[in-house]
């Protein structure tokens, strides 16, 4: 129980940080419910009073019943109910959307501090859509699990306090029985459904994995004739999950039936006790009717609680997943590179790197020195360790053993800003954002003028293409840069680098997906821009040495080991 609370705590604090908005929102819901109760109660009182007055009048007795004040009250509550409901929904949805912004801000903050290995593991699009779903779950928490129980409690207190004016005994019974009901359908139900709904979240994740397997391994499943076997695996998992789901539904349905039976019986009990009080003259008819009708209407405040609280386990699963992100976030480093007059040499001393859970090291005992302002090429097949080496040099991963140093500092110790200022890297997988060409370029340099952007595009031979586009620099690149071809996307990513002036540059396959003529153009522009910078090219193999001018060091990575190449093996 305490563990559950601990996991929820930071998020609850975030949701309740805007305390005033929470109180106002709850107040509005409460007013809506109370307006409904008052409308029903007052109408009942009015009818009963009129009936008694009518009988008195018919019998010729004097009767003074003010029909205008209650009549006005009824109209007022009818209107208040409508208006309060409308305002409440608008106000609370506004709050929920504000909280969504807060939640995303926080989760994004966690993600910005993740290291490369954790990010790479989370690249898959299904992880990302689950992330947004988890945030939405927490967002729903506010409207489903925070406001309603609070309002229900307030309503039960006010209703019983009101009845206590005339019938304290009845009021006590109402308060106790509804209080117990409240406990059962909130805390009790959270406990009762916790394991099931947590299991449901786990089952769903498992199902997702099985479906992903079926899709990704479809070639193997179809050719080996094992599709039916795998589908049986899925359906047996579903059967198993259905048992749990049925249990959950059954419990939720029982909770709703419980609310219905308790409030229904309570109405009868109130009528019984109030009827006795009426017989004894402790209360008059209209008041008794009012009390009964208020209790009749109060189930509105309790109705949705069981089905909301029974799913607490699912929210817990979401919170657990989000909390893992905050645990994985690395603490940010603090060293800032001195701005100028540095010689940015790269040095690796006996560096090994092993990914968690991997048996074979990605790099083993790699050592080299690249003096400042020199250029090197490292070749190797994919999986040979090139990307890992680049991540180590960029300070985005820490070596399992050995030392990495850039200009005499361990890159991991540098602050993100300092690293960004001095290092630049063209990654193997380029990230373009859904926005215009200019927006994507300005990520590298927010203050860049249009002229600078055109110059950068010219350097990667994209300016002619961009000129032909109807929107020029405002051409949308699409989600993941899908409006561009793979080669164009890489060139845009390269153009971003041209907007900066780093000291150390790592280029992973800079000429992939580019035809020979364009490659030559880019190589020429690169040569110019790379003057006085320390550079490593990472390529599959050297196809054309002309593309890599000024390179003095040729190294090859194979199975995690660095081998010095004497020449070009093309």
């Amino acid at each position, binding site marked *: 129980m305490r563990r559950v609370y601990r996991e929820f705590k930071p998020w609850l604090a975030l949701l309740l940080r805007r305390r005033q908005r929470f109180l106002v929102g709850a107040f509005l819901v409460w007013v809506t419910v109370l307006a409904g109760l008052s409308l029903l109660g007052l109408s009942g009182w009015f009818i009963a009073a009129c009936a008694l007055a009518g009988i008195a009048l018919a019998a010729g007795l004097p009767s003074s019943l003010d029909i205008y004040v209650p009549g006005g009250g009824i109209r007022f509550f009818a209107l208040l109910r409508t208006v309060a409901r*409308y305002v409440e929904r608008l106000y609370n949805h506004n709050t929920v959307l504000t909280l969504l912004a807060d939640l995303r801000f926080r989760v*994004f903050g966690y993600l910005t501090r993740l290291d490369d290995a954790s990010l790479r593991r989370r690249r898959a699009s299904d992880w990302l859509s689950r992330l947004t779903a988890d945030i939405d779950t927490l967002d729903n928490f506010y409207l489903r699990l925070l406001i309603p129980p609070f309002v229900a409690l307030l309503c039960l207190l006010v209703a019983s306090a009101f009845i206590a004016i005339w019938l304290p005994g009845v009021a006590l019974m109402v308060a106790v029985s509804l209080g117990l009901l409240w406990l059962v359908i909130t805390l009790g139900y959270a406990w009762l459904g916790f394991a099931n709904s947590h299991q449901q979240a786990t089952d769903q994740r498992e199902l997702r994995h099985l479906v992903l397997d079926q899709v990704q391994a479809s070639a193997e499943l179809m050719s080996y004739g*094992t599709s039916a076997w795998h589908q049986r695996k899925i359906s047996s998992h579903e059967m198993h999950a259905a048992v749990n789901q049925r249990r959950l539904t059954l419990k939720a349905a029982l909770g709703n039936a419980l609310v219905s*039976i308790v409030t229904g019986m309570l109405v009868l009990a109130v009528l019984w006790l109030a009827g006795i009080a009426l017989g004894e003259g402790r209360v008059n008819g209209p008041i008794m009717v009012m009390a009964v009708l208020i209790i009749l209407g109060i189930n509105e405040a309790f109705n949705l609680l069981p089905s909301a609280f029974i799913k607490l386990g699912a929210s817990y699963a979401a919170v657990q997943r989000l909390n893992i992100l905050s645990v994985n976030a690395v603490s940010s480093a603090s060293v800032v590179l001195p701005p100028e007059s540095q010689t940015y040499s790269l040095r690796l001393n006996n560096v090994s790197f092993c990914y968690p859970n991997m048996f074979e090291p990605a790099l083993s005992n790699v050592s080299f020195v690249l003096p400042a302002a020199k250029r090197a090429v490292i070749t190797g097949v994919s999986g040979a360790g090139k990307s890992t080496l680049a991540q180590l040099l960029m300070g985005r991963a820490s070596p399992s053993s050995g030392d990495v140093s850039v200009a005499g500092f361990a890159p991991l110790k540098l602050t993100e800003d300092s690293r960004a200022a001095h290092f630049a890297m063209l990654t193997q997988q380029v990230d373009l954002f859904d926005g215009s060409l200019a927006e994507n370029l300005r990520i590298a340099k927010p203050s860049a003028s249009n002229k600078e952007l055109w110059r950068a595009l010219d350097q990667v031979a994209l300016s002619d293409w961009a000129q032909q586009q109807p929107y020029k620099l405002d051409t949308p690149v699409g989600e993941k840069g899908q409006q561009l071809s793979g080669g164009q996307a890489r060139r845009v990513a390269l153009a971003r680098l041209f907007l900066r002036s780093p000291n150390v540059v790592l280029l992973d396959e800079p000429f992939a997906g580019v035809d020979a003529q364009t490659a030559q153009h880019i190589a020429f522009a690169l040569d110019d821009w790379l003057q006085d910078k320390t550079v490593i090219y990472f390529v599959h193999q050297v196809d054309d040495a002309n593309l890599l001018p000024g390179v003095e060091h040729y190294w090859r990575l194979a199975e995690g080991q660095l081998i010095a190449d004497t020449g070009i093996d093309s």
Partner: protein
Amino acid sequence: MTGITNPMSGRDQSGEPLITPRLWLQMLAHRERNRLVGAAACGVLAGVQTVVLVVGLAWLIDQLVIHGRSPAQLLPLFGGLALTVGLRSLFQWGQEVLSAEASLRIRQFARAELLAKIAKLGPVWLTQRQSGALATQAVEHIDALDGYFARFYPQLRIVVALPLLIACVVGWLDYLVAIFLLLSAPLIPLFMALVGMGAERLNRDQFAAVSRLSAHFIDRVRGMTTLQLFGHTRSAQQEVWYATDEYRRLSMRTLRLAFLSSAVLEFFASVAIAVVAMYVGFGLLGYIDYGPSPSLTLFTGLAVLLLAPEFFQPLRTLSQHYHDRAAALGAAESIATIFNEPALVPHHIASPQTPGAECELANISVGYIGRKPALQAVSMTVFVGDVVAITGESGSGKSSLLAVLAGFMAPLSGEYRRRSSKVAWLDQSPCLIQGTMADNLRLANPEANEAAMTDALRRAGLGALLEALPAGLESVVGERGVGLSGGQAQRLALARVYLSTAPLVVLDEPTASLDASAEQAVIQALLEWAKEGRTLVIATHHPAIVHVATRHFVCEAGKLNEVIV
């Protein structure tokens, strides 16, 4: 299966009517008609109990207040009403359980149907799709149907019956009030339609905005590496907040209108109570003397007062579940597009006519529907024990040809015939499924025993790894367990081939992106399989593999030519 479901199963021939989202939902509902009707009936019966309860309460109150009777004298009625309360809970429970069960079964069926369809579309179709998106369709989108079947659908039936029933009871008590309710009733759908039309469009806009916003968030998260490299994370984080807040500002504008529909219903229910209360009050005081008013009593007055909101309740519940319908339609739309895809996988593969042939291609053309065929008029007979290498530029159609040989895709024309139903398949990026080493091997042969699996791993050069693994064959591999390098994964795929009894092995660029030692392991395996008498067809541009082959074909300019040495 009834006739209605036929369009789903027989959709390979072209010319079949396409399935629409609404039609699909109807067909699904039809499968669980009994439970759904039962749920609606339970809902109506629960409503009837509510009617009995409030009318009974009104009568009790009338007896207590006007006729001065004591509760003890009315004990039987109290008991009767307690029974009614119990019955109401029972029916509510029944409605919920029945509709939930119907929804569960429908979702299971729909998911199985979708997965079967995906299997029929085959690996070639799947390579053009994002597997994450497909998994979302099969898991989350199918689950999005829950609200529609568990809540909206039965409620739609209840809405037709229950208000009418309540109006009848009210009419029996006081026909003026019944007339008032019935007059306001047609106004509600009218208002709802007016507001609903706007709201539905808004709802759709809202959906679009939500997905745009999620896309923005996902877009930034996906590009986190780049943001970090450019030191741009802080401003991106701010941007995330502003984008969400901007969305809040925009959507509040639309929500103002969207919430009107629920406000309209709330208004009607509240006004009905107010109007009935005033009418009954004045009637009881004797201020109204037309129609049934003079005969009003506290009993009839209270009963119609309490029945008035019940009259609107089913509609209000329906409007609460309206978004379930929108969600289900959205999900059905995305799933129906998959059902409408033409299947690529052949129905049936006949046996070869040439004696001694493992498989044969009779004048086939291969490629994608709607595009120029990559290869035309291909005839080729592969005999048992042949080792066939197929070379050609990328894009020359050799991958498509291999897909036909493996049975992933039917040829555009001509006939493909094969001896065995099973084929062993190996490509350059072998798939590791979630689970243990043994699960991954069973993919090739579910019946394989432990000894066979160990032997296969050893022959594929993974003996040392197997010994190093803490739980041996039961070690979890892949994302959630021990990570395998590219070379190890390819060796695991080799082990699958060893384990399989398939006589024909089809390999698509098996050595691309492998380091030298893994490459050597593949070539070694090829030689062993050939020695075992298996038939191999290999698409490759690796000279060493072409050298191993006994026959060599080249894909060139839309033709397949055999190289005779």
